[in-house]
């Protein structure tokens, strides 16, 4: 028992800590070479205010770090939802119909690698007449970029359904909707969730780019603003927070994913 506990302490606390310390040492060394890069102590002092008052709002671009993060997460959440709502059925169609795959796979493969920086201006054009073009353009960019892993994984999942399950549906003469909800969807769920997790990762990657272009409050916008103001400590703070949030989201999703793997 205690031996196991010790092993856990070592694997999950001590060893990661070694990595962090190495990273900080490397950072300090880098600081001694360049003038602009703040060292950890200076960075902490400069960003103290944003961390100790994480939800404060002093001005449009002067808010607590968690408040900014919250704004970004909410935007990512909305875009991600749109991506799932469109991506999952699209994936099902691709998986079920060879005809559909042959027709649409090439265009999907072409659109998939397009950068968020390229989608954003198109979004602005598309939603020009809406009340808030920049908001809709961000949503559009996030969902278009984040959609593809869900689409492709769902399609693979549908194609991987064992013939046996389909035979069961045939012998029982299940109706189309029952086949979908009792056989196809449960059989595809593990693949779908892998897609969902990858999509969330991409959505979080895209948010920074989008907010930089948009220049509105949010973690990415804050980062860009801090850079323009020459406040490099805050840039580093933002990078660390973005990384932490991304890591947490991925962990949460893989927990959910693990639940469905066993089913």
């Amino acid at each position, binding site marked *: 028992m205690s031996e196991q506990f010790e092993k856990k302490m070592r694997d999950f606390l001590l060893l990661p800590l070694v990595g962090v310390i190495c990273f900080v040492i490397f950072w300090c060394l880098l600081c001694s070479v360049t003038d602009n890069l703040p060292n950890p102590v200076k960075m902490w002092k400069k960003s103290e205010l944003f961390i100790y008052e994480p939800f404060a709002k002093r001005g449009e671009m002067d808010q607590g770090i968690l408040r900014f993060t919250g704004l970004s997460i909410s935007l990512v959440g909305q875009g991600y939802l749109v991506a799932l709502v469109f991506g999952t059925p699209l994936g099902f169609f691709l998986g079920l119909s060879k005809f559909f795959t042959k027709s649409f796979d090439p265009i999907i493969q072409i659109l998939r690698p397009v950068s968020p920086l390229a989608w954003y201006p198109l979004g602005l054009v598309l939603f020009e007449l809406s009340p808030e073009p920049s908001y809709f353009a961000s949503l559009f960019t996030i969902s278009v970029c984040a959609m593809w892993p869900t689409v492709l994984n769902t399609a693979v999942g549908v194609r991987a359904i064992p013939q046996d399950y389909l*035979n069961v549906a045939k*012998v029982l003469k299940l109706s189309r909707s029952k086949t979908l909800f*009792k056989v196809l969807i449960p059989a595809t769920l593990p693949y779908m969730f892998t897609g969902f997790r990858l999509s969330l990762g991409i959505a979080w990657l895209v948010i920074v780019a989008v907010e930089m272009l948009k220049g509105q409050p949010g973690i990415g916008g804050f980062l860009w603003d801090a850079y323009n103001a020459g406040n490099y400590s805050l840039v580093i703070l933002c990078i660390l927070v973005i990384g932490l949030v991304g890591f947490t989201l991925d962990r949460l999703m893989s927990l959910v994913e693990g639940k469905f793997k066993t089913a």
Partner: protein
Amino acid sequence: MAFLELRNVSKGYTSSKGFTSVLKEVNLQIEEGEFVAIVGYSGAGKTTLISLLAGLIKPDSGQVLMNGKVIEGADPERGLVFQNYSLLPWLTVYENIRLAVDEVFPQWSSEGRDIHTMKYIQMVNLTHAKDRYPKELSGGMRQRVSVARALSMTPKVLLLDEPLSALDALTRATLQDEIKNIWEGEKKTVLLITNDVDEGILLADRIIPLSAGPGATLGDSVPVNIPRPRDRKTINHIPEFKEIRKRVNGYLLGGALKPKIKIEKKLILPAIEPEDLDLPRQRLGVPRRAVRTNEIKKETVEL
């Protein structure tokens, strides 16, 4: 007129290697209430045969008939028990069977369907495990669920596709007895596909051997006139048992058709010349390599 009938049915598959005939000119007639066993080698086309009867696939030529009508697609009136159980892993034992019951008896009340479902779970002695998932069951238990699911649809014919071949000998014996009891109790038409002649003799009214594929076909049926109830412990001392076994095995082992299987083997004889170390490591951007001159030989083996 036979209850279930195959008329000159042929079926094959087209793959990248061309067309392979699986079944050729198969004729089969089963009367209502009869228990027929088809015995054949693995890979002879037994599963293809039962898929045709179930309506999961269509014949290339010939007709599959039930009650004189051509079978168009699968139907719950022909209950199929799959070789690999084919339970839906995300549903419990109860839910797997209930799914079938809901589909076949939509006009019944919810309680009626519940009672019906429980009756068949009880029939295969799984009441204690009704809320378990398939992965929590042993192979024999899974197959019992599969049998219960097929029976719960109250089919007119029960098609059993090697239901016991994946089980150990003891579980096999128990399940053979259960199938026998169910058949005696429900008096359904049963078609059992198996690779075990003894199993066929123990359970069936007649046994039909299926020759080895490709292009397999059914031999003459061998009636089993051993009176019921048959006891597995004494049955193999009865002279008739030995006689039937001899006839079926005789056909299967090539008395009638002498089936031959040809296997083409590819042999690769490796021959690697060592690197010439006198040459420079790279010349004009092309790295120095060992030279492979592998010889490929083809060999045909007849079994």
